[in-house]
C-alpha cells in the first residue's frame, strides 16, 4: 500500500498526464483545422527526464555502479541490433546505445580497469573493476541479431530508456573523474569508419583539457601522418607539447592505481598488435589498449599498417596466411583473452594459426570450490607460477597472490594424492596377480576364480578393500549420524538434507566430468593407435 501511495505522488506521473493532455490538445486542434495552434503545440511537446528517478534509486554513485551489470548488458545488446529503419527499434536509439557503450568501453580501456574476459557462446563477457565494484557485462557477438517475436519490445525499450539515461550519467561522472569533457567530440572521419571506440580513445588521450589547442588541432586534423602522430603521442608522452598534462595525469593515476591495475596496464606493454579483417575488431580494440598494448587493424583509418616492422603479434583467424612476416607471431584471437585472464603472456605455440586452440576456460569459476580442475587450468597455473618466479623479486605479494599460492598448494597436494592413489592401485594389481598365481597353483579353475574376484575389479578394488576394513566403523558412524538426525528439529533436518543433496549433486557433476574426460582420452588414444 505504502509503495503504491508513494508511486502515486511521483512527479513523473504528473508529467505523463501532461503529455496525455498535450496529445489530446493536438488532436483537437487538428480536428478543428486550427493548423496554427496544432503546429505551435507540436513544436513544444512536454518532455520528461529520468534523472530524479536515477538519483532516487541510486543515491550514491557506488550504488549505481553496483547495479550497472544489467544496464551494460542491455545497452550492449541493443547496440548489436540491426539499425534498420522500419524495425521495431528506432535507429536513433540503437545509435545512442552504440555511442554509450563505446564511451563506457573507452573509459574502462583508458583507466585499465578491465580484469577478466571470456568468450562464451552467448557473447563476450567482460569484468571490470571500478571503484572497488566488480562489474560484469555481456556483449553479443558482432553479428546481426534477429529481432524475434517472442519478446515484448515495449518492456525492453522502457528498461532501455532508463538504462540509457543511467549510463549517460555514469559516463559523465566517470569522465569527470578522469578530467575529460563528457559529451566527447569525435573525429567525424573515424566515426564514419565505425571505429568509434578508437576515436574515443584518442579523444581521451589527447583532448584532456578542452582549451588545449593542440588537441583541438589533433581532433580536427585528418591527415594520415597526424593520425600516426597521435598514436605516437599516446606512447611517448615526453615528445609532445601536451605531454605535461599526460605526465601529471599518469603520476596521479599511479598513486590511485593498486597493484592489480598496474599489472593490468602493463600486460601488453611494448607489444604491438595488428588485427586481420576476420577477427572481432571492436572487442580486441577494447581489450588490447586496456592492457597497455598498441593496436592497429586492417582497413581505413588505422594508425599503422600491416607492413610495420614493429608489430609483434598479428591476430588472425583464418586457416592460411598469404604473406607471413617472420618478425611477428600469428595467433588466434583466443590467445588475447587467455593472456588477459591468466595475466601473463602465454606461449603462442598453442594458438598458432590453423590449429585448434586449447580449451577456453571461464575466469569466473573458482575451480577448487567447484571440485574439478580442468587440465588446461593447471597448465596455466604452472605457467603463472613460473612467470612469477622469473619476474618477481617479490616486492609485494598482494592478497590475491597469496590466494594463488594457496590454490597452487592445493593443486600440488591433490596431484600428490593422485600419485599415491596410482601407486596403490598398482600394488593392488600386483597383489591380485599374485593371488591369481597362487590360485592357479591350487588348481582352481580360472572361471571360478574370476567369479570370485568379479566384485573387486581393478578400478574400485582399492575402495573395496578399504570398505572391508572400515565397514564396521562406517556403520557405527552412520548410526551415530542417524541418531543425531532423529533428534534434530524438522527445519534443521530439512536444511541438512538440502545441503547433502547439494553436495551429492555437485559430486555427481564432477564425477560425470571425470568420466567424460576419461572416455575422451581413451577414445583419443584408441584413435592414436
Amino acid at each position: 500500500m505504502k509503495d503504491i501511495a508513494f508511486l502515486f505522488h511521483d512527479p513523473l506521473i504528473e508529467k505523463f498526464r501532461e503529455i496525455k493532455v498535450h496529445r489530446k490538445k493536438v488532436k483537437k486542434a487538428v480536428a478543428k483545422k486550427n493548423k496554427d495552434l496544432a503546429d505551435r503545440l507540436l513544436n513544444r511537446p512536454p518532455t520528461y527526464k529520468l534523472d530524479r528517478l536515477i538519483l532516487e534509486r541510486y543515491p550514491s554513485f557506488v550504488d549505481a555502479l553496483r547495479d550497472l551489470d544489467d544496464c551494460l548488458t542491455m545497452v550492449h545488446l541493443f547496440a548489436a541490433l540491426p539499425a534498420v529503419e522500419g524495425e521495431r527499434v528506432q535507429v536513433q536509439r540503437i545509435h545512442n546505445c552504440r555511442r554509450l557503450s563505446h564511451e563506457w568501453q573507452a573509459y574502462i580501456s583508458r583507466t585499465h580497469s578491465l580484469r577478466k574476459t571470456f568468450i562464451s557462446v552467448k557473447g563476450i563477457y567482460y569484468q571490470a573493476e571500478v571503484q572497488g565494484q566488480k562489474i560484469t557485462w555481456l556483449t553479443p557477438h558482432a553479428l546481426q541479431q534477429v529481432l524475434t517475436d517472442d519478446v515484448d519490445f515495449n518492456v525492453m525499450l522502457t528498461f532501455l530508456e532508463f538504462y540509457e539515461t543511467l549510463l549517460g550519467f555514469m559516463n559523465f561522472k566517470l569522465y569527470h573523474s578522469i578530467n575529460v569533457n563528457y559529451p566527447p567530440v569525435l573525429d567525424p572521419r573515424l566515426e564514419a569508419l565505425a571505429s568509434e571506440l578508437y576515436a574515443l580513445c584518442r579523444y581521451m588521450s589527447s583532448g584532456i583539457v578542452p582549451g588545449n589547442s593542440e588537441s583541438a588541432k589533433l581532433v580536427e586534423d585528418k591527415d594520415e601522418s597526424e593520425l600516426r602522430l597521435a598514436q605516437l603521442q599516446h606512447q611517448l608522452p615526453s615528445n609532445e607539447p601536451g605531454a605535461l598534462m599526460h605526465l601529471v595525469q599518469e603520476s596521479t593515476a599511479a598513486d590511485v592505481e593498486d597493484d592489480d591495475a598496474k599489472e593490468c596496464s602493463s600486460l601488453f606493454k611494448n607489444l604491438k598488435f595488428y588485427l586481420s579483417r576476420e577477427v572481432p575488431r571492436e572487442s580486441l580494440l577494447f581489450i588490447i589498449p586496456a592492457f597497455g598494448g598498441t593496436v592497429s587493424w586492417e582497413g581505413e583509418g588505422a594508425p599503422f599498417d600491416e607492413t610495420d616492422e614493429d608489430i609483434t603479434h598479428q591476430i588472425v583467424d583464418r586457416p592460411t596466411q598469404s604473406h607471413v612476416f617472420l618478425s611477428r607471431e600469428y595467433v588466434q584471437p583466443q590467445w588475447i583473452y587467455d593472456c588477459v585472464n591468466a595475466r601473463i603472456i602465454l606461449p603462442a605455440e598453442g594458438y598458432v594459426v590453423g590449429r585448434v586452440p586449447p580449451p577456453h576456460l571461464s575466469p569466473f569459476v573458482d575451480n577448487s570450490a567447484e571440485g574439478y580442475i580442468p587440465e588446461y587450468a593447471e597448465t596455466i597455473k604452472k605457467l603463472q607460477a613460473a612467470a612469477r618466479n622469473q619476474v618477481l623479486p617479490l616486492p609485494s605479494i598482494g592478497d590475491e597472490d597469496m590466494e594463488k599460492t594457496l590454490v597452487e598448494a592445493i593443486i600440488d597436494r591433490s596431484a600428490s594424492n593422485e600419485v599415491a592413489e596410482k601407486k596403490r592401485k598398482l600394488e593392488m594389481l600386483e597383489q591380485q596377480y599374485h593371488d591369481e598365481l597362487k590360485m592357479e597353483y591350487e588348481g582352481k579353475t580360472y572361471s571360478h576364480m574370476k567369479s570370485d574376484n568379479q566384485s573387486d575389479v581393478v578400478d574400485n578394488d582399492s575402495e573395496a578393500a578399504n570398505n572391508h576394513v572400515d565397514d564396521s566403523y562406517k556403520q557405527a558412524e552412520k548410526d551415530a549420524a542417524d541418531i543425531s538426525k532423529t533428534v534434530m528439529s524438522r527445519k534443521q533436518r530439512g536444511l541438512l538434507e538440502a545441503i547433502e543433496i547439494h553436495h551429492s549433486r555437485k559430486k555427481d557433476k564432477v564425477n560425470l566430468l571425470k568420466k567424460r574426460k576419461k572416455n575422451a582420452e581413451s577414445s583419443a588414444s584408441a584413435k592414436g593407435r
Partner: protein
Amino acid sequence: MGHSDGDHDDLSADDSPWSEDIWSDDNEGSLSFEDSGEGSDAESDETDAPAAEESDSSEDEVAPRNTVGDVPLVWYKDEEHIGYDISGRKIKKRDREGRIEAYLRNADDAKNWRKIYDEYNDEEVQITKEEAKIISRMLKGKTPHTNVDPYPDYVDWFEYDDKGHPLSSAPEPKRRFVPSKWEQKKVVKLVRAIRKGWIKFDKPKEEPNFYLLWGDETDTADNKRQGLSYIPAPKPNLPGHEESYNPSVEYIPTQEEIDSYQLMYEEDRPKFIPRRFDCLRSVPAYEKALREGFDRCLDLYLCPRTRKKRINIDPESLKPKLPSKKDLRPYPRTCYLEFKGHNGPVKSLSVEASGQWIASGSSDGTIRVWEVETGRCIKVWKVGGVVHRVAWNPQPDRHILAAIVDHDLLLLNAEIGDEEVQMRTKKLLHIEELAPEEEETGDKKPAVKWVNHDKFDGIVLIHHKAVSTVEWHFKGDYFTTVVPSGDSRAVLLHQLSKKHSHHPFRKLPGLPIAAVFHPSQKMFFVATKKFVQVYDLQKAQIVKKLESGVREISSISIHPGGDNVIVGSKMVNCVGLILIYPHVHTRH
C-alpha cells in the same frame, strides 16, 4: 453520304436570311445555330416538323413559299399539293423523278454535294461556299464566323479617373474610420496569452542532457535514500567453463546424454547444452540473446525481492551434540540375571500382578513361566505354534495366562499359588461340553468358539480369523481380543466366568490395531490406524474420538493412574505420543 446531304438541304432553306442578318443580332444568330443542329437531326428522321418550326421562328426572313404553317407534312402526303402560297393558291407537288435519274443527275453535277432538298417547300436549294465554310467551322466547334474574337478586352461602363466624384453620393459609414472591435478583442486575447506565458515563441532552451548527478559524495545527508526501500537485484549468474565457445572436451555431453535430456522433466532439463567451435570465426550469433535479455527484464520488474540471508553452514554443525554415553551414567550396564531356556526369539513377555512370576512366549512354540528372583523356569507348555502374545490375568488370585498361539487364543492355568486358588482357577477354566446343535445356529461361522484344550488344563478360543492382541480388564473377568481383519467382528469382548463373547463394535473408522480397558473406569479404548476411540462400556456408545496425528498407530497403552494414554507409532523418529485424557493434549 445521305446524312451530309440532308444537312445541306436543311440549311439551304434559310439560306438567304442567314446570310443577311445573322451577324446583326446575337440572339438570332444563336437561335439559328440551334436550329441548324435540330434540323440536321430531323433530317435524318425524314420528318418535316423541325423544318416547319424553323420557318416559323425566323420572322425576319423572307416568308417561305408555302404557308401551311407548323403542321405535320404527313397530312399532305397523299395530296397533290404541298400547301398554299400567300395568295392562297395551291402549290403543286413537283413530279417525282426516278431514283436513277436523280443519281445520274447528281453524278454529273459537280456542285451536287451542296444541294439540299427542302421538303417543306418541295424544292432543291444549293448552299453557297461561305455557308459550307460556316458549317464546317461549326462542326469543328469553332465560332461560325472567322472574324469573331471570343475573348475581347473588357471595356468598363464608366471611367473613374479624373472624374472627381464617386458614383454614389452616400456618405462614408463610421465603421470605415473606427478600428475593428473584434479584431481588437482577438489581439487582446493573444497579448494576454503571450504575457501570461500560455503562448511561447522562443524555442525551449536546450538543457544539457547529462550533468554531474552525483555531486559530492561527502555529504552523507544527501545520500540518504528517501523513497521506498530498495533491494538491489541479484546479479545474473556468471558463466562457467561449459559456456565457453571452446570448452574442454569433458564439458561436452555425448549424443546419448543429449537424447536423455528429452526424457527429463521440462524444469530439470539443462538450459544450456555446451558446444565446441574450432575457431572464433565460426561462432554464430546467439539466437536467444534477446529472449534472455527480456527474461531478465521480466525478472527485474515482476519478481518481488526480499532480503535473504545466505548462510553457509557446516552441515556437521547442524547436528545436535549427542551426550556421550559416559555422561549418562549411572545406568544399568551389567547383566544381573538371564532366563535361559527358549530356543527361538522371545516374542512377548508378561509380569504377573504380584510381581513374582514372569511369563514369556517364544516363536519356538513354548510358553514358559519363570520365577523372577531366581530365574528358575517353573513351567513349560509346548503349544506347538508361534506364541505371539502372553498376558497375565491382573487379578492376583487368578493365575491365568492368556496367550495367542498361531491365530487362536489360549487360556492356561499357570498352576501356581496355593491349593485353593488353583482349584478356583481350574473351575473357572472348565466348560461343559456344548450341545452340537448350537453350532449350526448361525449360517456364518461364529466369531469365537470356546473349547476345552485337549492337552493342557485350559480353554482355547477359536477365532474366525487371526488374533493380534489380547488385553485383560482390571477385574480379571473380562478380556478383549482384536482380530484386525475381522471387519464388523474385529473387536471382541469375552467374559471368562460365563464363557461368553460378543462383539459390540460394529463400525470402526479403519482397521483396528489394539484395544484396551481403562484401569479404573468403565471405559474402553480402541486404536485404529489414525484414531483412538473411547467407548463407554455401560452405555455401549462412543464417548470421544482422539486424533493422534501420527501416520500409523502401532500400539496403545493407558497409564495405571487412568489419566494418560500413550500411543506408539511406526514412524522412526516419533517414538511416543501422549494423549492426556480427558483433557486432550498431545505431545510428541
